[in-house]
């Protein structure tokens, strides 16, 4: 058994978020609203990855995510994979996927957009999944990878 597998197996039950893009671990924690989570969380950053050079990893004990929740992190880390551990075994392993629409947690880049002035939840159509281009349903302006901000 390799060392890496040992690390993953250290969780009895929970979720491992692996292959997080370098520098995005904190943001993933934030997007998944884990700052106030009261069970164990293991974090790793700048780990060596054969595929991506450097990577981050998060292990959350006793927590499983709904697809729409976990897929939010695809915006900041499209390479991430999600491993569900149940009773020390890998129960499920999936890559994150960018959804067709994004609701509520990304800020619209347009300062004159209604969503930045009134209590209107943001709502975007993902018009380019590769480059990450989000078209606001309200002001019709694009928010892109370079200017994305999270609410």
């Amino acid at each position, binding site marked *: 058994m390799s060392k890496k597998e040992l690390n993953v197996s250290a969780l009895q039950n929970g979720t491992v978020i692996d292959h997080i893009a370098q520098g995005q671990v904190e943001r993933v924690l934030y997007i998944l609203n884990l700052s106030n989570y009261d069970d164990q969380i293991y974090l790793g950053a700048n780990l060596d990855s054969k595929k991506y050079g450097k990577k981050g990893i998060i292990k959350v004990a006793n927590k499983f995510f709904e697809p729409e929740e976990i897929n939010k992190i695809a915006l900041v880390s499209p390479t991430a994979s999600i491993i569900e551990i149940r009773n020390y075994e890998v129960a499920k392993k999936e890559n994150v996927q960018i959804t067709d629409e994004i609701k509520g947690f990304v800020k*619209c880049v347009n300062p004159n*957009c*209604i969503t930045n002035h*009134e209590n209107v939840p943001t709502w975007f159509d993902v018009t380019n999944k590769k480059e990450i281009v989000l078209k606001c349903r*309200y*002001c*019709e302006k694009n928010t892109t990878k370079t200017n994305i901000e999270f609410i």
Partner: protein
Amino acid sequence: MKGKSLISINDYSKDEMLRILDIAEGFEKQPRQPILSDKVVSTLFFEPSTRTRLSFESAANHLGARVIGFTDAASSSTKKGESLKDTILTVACYSDIIIMRHPLAGSARWASEVSSVPVINAGDGANQHPTQCLLDLYSIRKTQGKLDKLNIAFVGDLKYGRTVHSLTIAMCNFDTTFHLISPDELKLPSYVKQHIKDKSLEYHQYRTIEEAIDKVDILYMTRVQRERFADPIEYESVKNSYILTKNQLKGCKENLKVLHPLPRVNEISENVDNTPQAYYFQQAQNGVYVRQALLATILGATK
């Protein structure tokens, strides 16, 4: 289209746009038709735009509808801090359709999501003004007898002009050749050009009206504003190139018409007004017919 809000010109297919133009033709022939005499139309102008508001109110009156509303945010409860949502929910109880203008982009879409009655966007910040676009299409078709295979020139501020962006995108449905005349600072944004490229249509870019005047069927003028330039010297050096005079119309095609969304400041000399090419006041008149067509269609009063 009955019961459906009109927020963005992108909400209408080509066929739906053409249908509105056909219905508008009927209202041009016979403007006074009291088919909405049992309806209440509200005009909510969170920022003043007298011209657009009067055009809608004239359209509603010609159809026999009653009009309620306010003319700027200062006379509405918005200044007391009421949310747009609450204003819309309340007004929807008083009227059959809401026409709104608002300084923030996306406000009309949001209003249409919370409203129980249809909403017509009469301008949401820098974003959309779909009824302007439809009246422009109507004016082009009326003066040229068709929408297909025309040469259309846009002059002036092509970067910030939302009417130019919407009309460009709409004209991409009709095998148009575009002539884009602007200073370097105010060129058409690449996302709008992309629509032209996606349809493999032809476009040309120029710095002066003279270079294109003998090629075009429609000359669509917009104003070049000093505030748009980072360098005031640059503005001074180009400003006169985008003012249309009677002289510049020499050598133009016989069917050429000059359009302008109005209000004009100085970008079209008054000596153009009496030429056969001037069409901007009739264009404004056409706005009433198009708005009649929209009100009648959305409120279900057309066959």
